[in-house]
């Protein structure tokens, strides 16, 4: 208990009487839920033998001596509070929930570490803040709440939000942090965890905290600790929410009439290119809008003349209803605890037929068998059922012709009479069945031995086993089937992920007077296995059996079988030493020595050391600045690693292929690199924790500087080497930035509390070296796989996230023609109304040498801010997140803006250049003549800065008396709106989630009951 008085406790003190008395009364409640806390111990600081405990209304009465009295309030599961009584007679004390049963302890690689001793840059959020966002994804719950964590949500049912810590530290591999759930390192599939089960999330951001994860810590570590039972009477709690989701935005695409006019304009302009003296109006009347039209199909002319416009997207989408229920049971004694929970979540997707359902359960049990022997398990099981729809449904419907009637007649959609065999009729595509069933067991089991005092030995065996079955059936009635002449296609894929982790640690911790020392040594091994098998069968007599009867497939020669087996391993030794003196000076040193199977024989092992120091000035005897009650300086330096590269990249592989009745060996194109080694990041972090005015104002600030000098990437090779790519350590990257978290308790009254918080993060990366004398590495891709892309290129001295393209000069006007007449536009037409790019080198030729780094996809800064208002039982919470100064490429918008009326078009094209409307940046319509498009220049680069009302919640907690009369501890109702407001100039679906699928907004109604 001695060193555990944290200054971050929030107290609500209310003066009831104005004069001192010998009898003290008060009430203890949960800081967040305001629920009364039963069984809290209240003792006098001066004499810990004198005390009492609270009753089931959280109330207490205590005889206290006159004078300056300080109380210590202790309740399991909460942080201890030290309360100066002053001259009050009734105290309202609210306790901050502590996150683990072991109070301030979290499990780090099989060892229990005090949170306070995490000397590095760590952001923690507790269950109360997690539950502010009703969601079934943890990442989503973290959005905007952790400085330095950039979370991008995903509206597709069952898909997880992505999270990135401290910007880009690697190029391609593993930009996501690792997740450690109760000590188990998991890769992916975080959405099978129920946020309601989570007690706390600690985001470890610098090497001082992540070095203990060695080769995997480079992109940060998210430590998730699940709930444990609390000592005291058993509790039952039920949480439920219901939500209605819809798209937050749709693209402003043209309706039938505008699209018709656009196409007429595009054709007429193209005709005039060849017939400059021709009669344009005559041409339009004769060849375009008449029944003999070469530009329109009859159905389009009919729809246009009837004033019709069809919305295909509307036909395949819907409102998505969601519901989530969690029921948990918890309790414990001094000898052990239990926490058992059940969860059901059901999410209907916004595209028809898509659905996500999850049933999960958890048992966290801990028990002392002997005074020196403790065992425990944190085990969760989940069963997920997903219904997929074919990926083309949304995209095809979004790009459908508004002059085409919505029905299932065609196998493909069309513009004019051009049936596009890639545009499968989405109504038919909805007939495709896609089911995914997945079972996951995530179980961490430990035995903990204290053979002698202060010595702790712990061994943990963890399993993370996922078995997944994916089934598809594409019926004969779909365009997909027609195009591929399959006559029905059934696919079955069965996948097994089997991950095993075994951690052993020995910890010795002792306090010698003012010195506290803790030493930890351990080993960790991980075995990750993956295998799958897949069957695709073709040709069925009918569609009746779906994917269930493979034996009925008659096109046996088309049957494909595939399978793979992959094993990767990691072995580690780790050591850690913590020292602190009077809670004033802190030092932590860690080292981890990791071996990985992903590297060649001589490069398997790497060492990852770190050192962190901290100094709490307010603990100094000379400290007399009353206003500042905490001022802790932190500095940490360490090396973290990254091994997230494709498997077997050290070897050139030849894969067996079956073709023309025999097996052939063909290189997979990758040149093996036996010299591959870890990415090593040298990370420096300097931070300060400041707390002012009785902790009413708190500030945490961090500065980091990360040098990654062995950047791993897939490098394309000149094919004269015989290969197309290789994975190699190509260069060095510097990434630095700051993070700021501000918290303020603006009002602290008994019935009225107002808190506000603000977070800001900024990071900036720069490539400082590339291999050899190379100044640039180009990223090839595109339709043919060999075009230099706008993003993903590496330029010395520039950001990883640079955008590389031609620069937009202006829209050509008649007056420009003389100036540009001798410029070689590489075969493109530039006439009035077309885009002129900047001739960077002024040599009269526009080519790749005229490309610029035109922008950067990294925001200048980003973060969130929010406010909590509680008045009596009513709560209001608002949370915004923002991002400033980032650019974005929207291929989607560019596509819409390049339309010639033969594809979906954006309404901004109504502002296109015409001889009458010359003051515009939107080029003219022109069909079938090559010229510069939106995507060829930076004209398409979006200003993606935004401010979003990420969540707002209005809640009401029943008054204690009412709750009690219903025999409930706590009852809370709430309504939450997610993503209800967005301010941005971005033209795509969403500046954050991009253009694959629009973002969603949701209104949720929820209920929490505890008894």
């Amino acid at each position, binding site marked *: 208990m001695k060193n555990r008085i944290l200054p971050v406790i929030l107290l609500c003190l209310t003066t009831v009487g104005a004069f001192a008395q010998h009898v003290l009364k008060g009430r203890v409640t949960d800081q967040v839920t305001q629920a009364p806390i039963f069984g809290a111990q209240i003792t006098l600081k001066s004499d810990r033998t004198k005390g009492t405990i609270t009753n089931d209304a959280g109330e207490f009465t205590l005889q206290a001596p006159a004078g300056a009295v300080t109380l210590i309030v202790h309740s399991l599961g909460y942080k201890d509070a030290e309360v100066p009584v002053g001259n009050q007679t009734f105290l309202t004390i609210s306790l901050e929930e502590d996150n683990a049963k072991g109070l301030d302890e979290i499990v780090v690689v099989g060892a229990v570490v005090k949170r306070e001793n995490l000397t590095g840059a760590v952001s923690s959020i507790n269950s109360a803040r997690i539950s502010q966002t009703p969601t079934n994804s943890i990442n989503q719950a973290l959005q905007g709440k952790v400085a330095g964590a950039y979370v991008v949500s995903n509206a597709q049912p069952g898909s997880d939000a992505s999270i990135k810590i401290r910007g880009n530290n690697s190029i391609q591999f593993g930009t996501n942090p690792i997740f450690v759930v109760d000590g188990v390192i998991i890769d992916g599939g975080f959405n099978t965890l129920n946020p309601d089960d989570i007690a706390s999330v600690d985001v470890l951001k610098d090497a001082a905290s992540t070095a203990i994860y060695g080769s995997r810590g480079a992109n940060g570590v998210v430590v998730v600790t699940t709930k444990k039972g609390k000592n005291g009477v058993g509790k039952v709690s039920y949480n439920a929410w219901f939500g209605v989701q819809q798209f937050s935005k749709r693209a402003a695409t043209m309706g039938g009439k505008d699209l018709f006019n656009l196409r007429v304009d595009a054709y007429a302009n193209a005709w005039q290119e060849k017939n400059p003296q021709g009669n344009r109006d005559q041409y339009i009347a004769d060849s375009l809008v008449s029944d003999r039209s070469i530009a329109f199909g009859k159905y389009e002319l009919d729809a246009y003349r009837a004033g019709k416009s069809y919305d295909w997207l509307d036909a395949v989408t819907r409102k998505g209803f969601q519901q989530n229920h969690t029921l948990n049971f918890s309790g414990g004694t001094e000898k052990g605890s239990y926490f058992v929970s059940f969860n059901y979540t059901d999410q209907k997707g916004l595209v028809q037929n898509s659905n996500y359902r999850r049933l999960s359960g958890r048992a966290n049990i801990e028990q002392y068998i002997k005074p020196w022997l403790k065992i425990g398990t944190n085990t969760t099981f989940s069963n997920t059922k997903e219904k997929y729809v074919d990926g083309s449904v949304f995209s095809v419907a979004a790009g459908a012709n508004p002059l085409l009637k919505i029905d299932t007649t065609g196998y493909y959609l069309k513009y004019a009479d051009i049936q596009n065999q890639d545009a499968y009729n989405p109504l038919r595509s909805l007939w495709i069945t896609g089911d995914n069933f997945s079972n996951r067991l995530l179980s961490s089991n430990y035995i903990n031995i204290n053979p002698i005092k202060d010595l702790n*030995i712990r061994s943990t065996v963890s399993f993370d086993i996922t078995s997944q079955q994916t089934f598809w059936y594409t019926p004969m009635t779909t365009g997909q089937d027609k195009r591929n*002449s399959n006559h029905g296609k059934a696919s079955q894929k069965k996948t097994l992920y089997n991950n095993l982790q075994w951690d052993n640690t020995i910890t010795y911790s002792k306090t010698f007077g003012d010195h506290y020392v803790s030493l930890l040594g351990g080993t960790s091994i991980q075995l990750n296995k993956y295998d799958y098998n897949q069957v695709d069968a073709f040709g069925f007599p009918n569609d009746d059996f779906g994917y269930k009867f493979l034996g009925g497939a008659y096109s046996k020669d088309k049957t494909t079988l595939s399978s793979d087996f992959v094993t990767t391993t990691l072995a580690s030794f780790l050591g850690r030493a913590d020292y602190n003196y009077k809670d004033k000076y802190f030092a932590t040193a860690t080292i981890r020595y990791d071996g990985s199977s992903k590297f060649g024989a001589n490069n398997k092992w790497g060492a990852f050391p770190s050192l962190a120091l901290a100094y709490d000035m307010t603990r100094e005897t000379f400290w007399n600045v009353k206003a500042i009650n905490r001022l802790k300086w932190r500095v940490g330096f360490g090396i973290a690693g990254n091994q997230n590269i494709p498997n077997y990249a050290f070897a050139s592989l030849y894969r067996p292929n079956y073709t023309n009745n025999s097996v052939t060996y063909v290189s997979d194109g990758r040149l093996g690199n036996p010299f591959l080694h870890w990415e090593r990041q040298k990370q420096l972090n300097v931070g300060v924790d400041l707390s002012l005015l009785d902790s009413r104002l708190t500030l945490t600030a961090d500065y980091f500087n990360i040098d990654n000098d062995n950047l791993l990437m897939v490098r394309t090779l000149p094919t*004269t*080497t*015989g290969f197309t790519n290789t994975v190699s350590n190509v260069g060095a990257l510097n990434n630095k930035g700051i993070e700021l978290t501000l918290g303020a308790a603006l009002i602290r009254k008994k019935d009225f509390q107002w808190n506000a918080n603000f977070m800001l993060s900024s990071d900036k990366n720069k490539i400082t070296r590339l291999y050899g004398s190379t100044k640039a590495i180009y990223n090839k891709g595109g339709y043919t796989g060999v075009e230099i892309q706008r993003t993903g290129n590496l330029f010395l001295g520039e950001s990883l996230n640079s955008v590389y393209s031609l620069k937009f000069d202006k829209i050509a006007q008649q007056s420009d023609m003389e100036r540009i007449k001798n410029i070689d536009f590489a075969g493109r037409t530039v006439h009035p109304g077309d885009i002129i790019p900047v001739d960077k080198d002024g040599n009269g*030729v526009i080519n790749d040498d005229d490309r610029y780094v035109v922008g950067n996809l990294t925001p200048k800064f980003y973060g969130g801010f929010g406010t909590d208002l509680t008045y009596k039982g009513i709560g209001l919470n608002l949370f915004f997140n923002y991002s400033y100064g980032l650019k974005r490429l929207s291929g989607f918008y560019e596509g819409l803006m390049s339309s010639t009326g033969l594809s979906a078009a954006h309404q901004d094209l109504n502002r296109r250049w015409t001889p009458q409307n010359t003051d515009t940046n939107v080029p003219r319509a022109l069909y079938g003549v090559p010229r510069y498009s939106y995507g060829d220049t930076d004209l398409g680069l979006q200003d993606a800065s935004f401010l979003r009302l990420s969540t707002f919640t209005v809640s009401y907690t029943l008054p204690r008396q009412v709750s009690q009369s219903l025999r409930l501890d706590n009852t809370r109702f709430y309504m939450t709106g997610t993503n209800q407001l967005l301010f941005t100039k971005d033209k795509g679906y969403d500046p954050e989630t991009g253009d694959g699928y629009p973002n969603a907004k949701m209104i949720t109604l929820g209920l929490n009951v505890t008894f």
Partner: protein
Amino acid sequence: MKKRIFLLPLVFLMSCQDFLNQEPQTALTQEQVFSKLENIDPLITGLYTSWRNARKDRGGFMFQLGGDESQQGAFQVKSEPDQAGLDRYDGFLAPRNNALTQQWDMRWPIVTAAAKAILALQTNKEDENRRNQLLGEASFIWAAVCFELTQYWGDIPVIDAGKIAELGTGRKPLPMVYDYLVRYLQFAADHLPESQTDKRRVTKYAAMALLGKVYLYAPQAAGVRDYQKAADQFQKVIQSGKYSLVPKYADLFDPGKANSTESLYEFQFTNTYPDNNQTQWQMGSRALASVDGNCSFGGYDLMVPTAYAYSDVTKGGVWETGDTRKDASIRYDFTYKGEAPKLLSGFGGDELDPHVKKFEDPRTQGTMSFWYSGKNIFYLRYADVLLCYAECLNELNRTSEAVTIVNDQIRNRAFGGAIPASLKWASGISQDDFRTKMLDERMRELAFEGWRRMDLIRSGKFVSLIKARNNWAAQSNTIQEFHMRYPIPLTEILQNEEIPPSAQNPGYQQ
């Protein structure tokens, strides 16, 4: 209890190295593949597949675009500027041209893998016969691909796995390139068997025919052009007695009569993915594709015959009356199930002009998409050997013998086996007349089979004939002599330090 725990790290360390050695379980490493004949054999069949695949689908026709017998469909020209550059010979035909980069990129891995196989086989100590045969096959594939590359790009890297440190990956002068071609093909001709039951594999006579072509097609600068040596090779093929023209020209394109006596080597395809070739998808007419996705002459108009290639002599084209090759090579009539299809709005307008017919696969009709078209594609055909031999004889001042071969074999078959005297070439024509007539005869006999671009290059009439016959090149009017060679792809120049920008082909330097 404690003792055991302390031992743990030791046990752990000892077992670590094994634990961390995880080899791929469903692939072989390069060392494993080249270590024994049992593995090199499937590697070489893999090379055949990759070489074959360079001739399928869209990519398989890139070198035929921009010719005097074939050009892109109008809709393609409107919608794919990079690809249109291959016909327009405009600014898009530049180092960044993606369509060409793709062709370059797909060939070099074949060359280098063949080079590695050659090195591995040269040092292998197993069964000598089998080894030499495999070595012959690897040498042949190396040479066939490099021959194509050097014809179109000029100086190219010479990939010799045994001399990689010495030769590197820079461009090498033509004499060195052709020296390798001749040596490798000679080895193949010496060691390959006379016939193969597995039709994917090349034979002695295919090697001789290709070697003959190398002597005939080599640019003067290569120093190996030699009509006598070429004629010798062709003569050996002819005298082997293993090959003959099939009586009916149209039978050559009947999938039921594949691998005929006329075939020295053809790429083997089927109607089943991944062994189909999608050629009809590229060659057919969109107007039909809209009517029925399973119409065997539907497709997407990637490449169509030029007006010269589909018109009769009387209309300024190439066809003489009565030539059976015309209707076997080109589709003029699009009537489908009794109905004439209509031109559709939004397309290029040439969808019902004559189309390439040689790739139509009647086996797909009505049952599967033309995407599954999978007829074999000719590489070396006996008719080509005869024409090349005749050409050599003409160059060796034996014109009348050459005329006899053309009249009695090639043209006689073309006109149904009974060529009228009026259509026979006069035995007394001049050497130069023969050359001119031969160029048209090769178009009639070998249209769309992939040799035309090389024929134009060696004839010296590349620019004049393309400008006169290719609609898009004529419109653009920018074709020049330097276009005979393609630009080295920008990505190669940027990433291969041994090919600096200054090593770019003339006309393309930026």
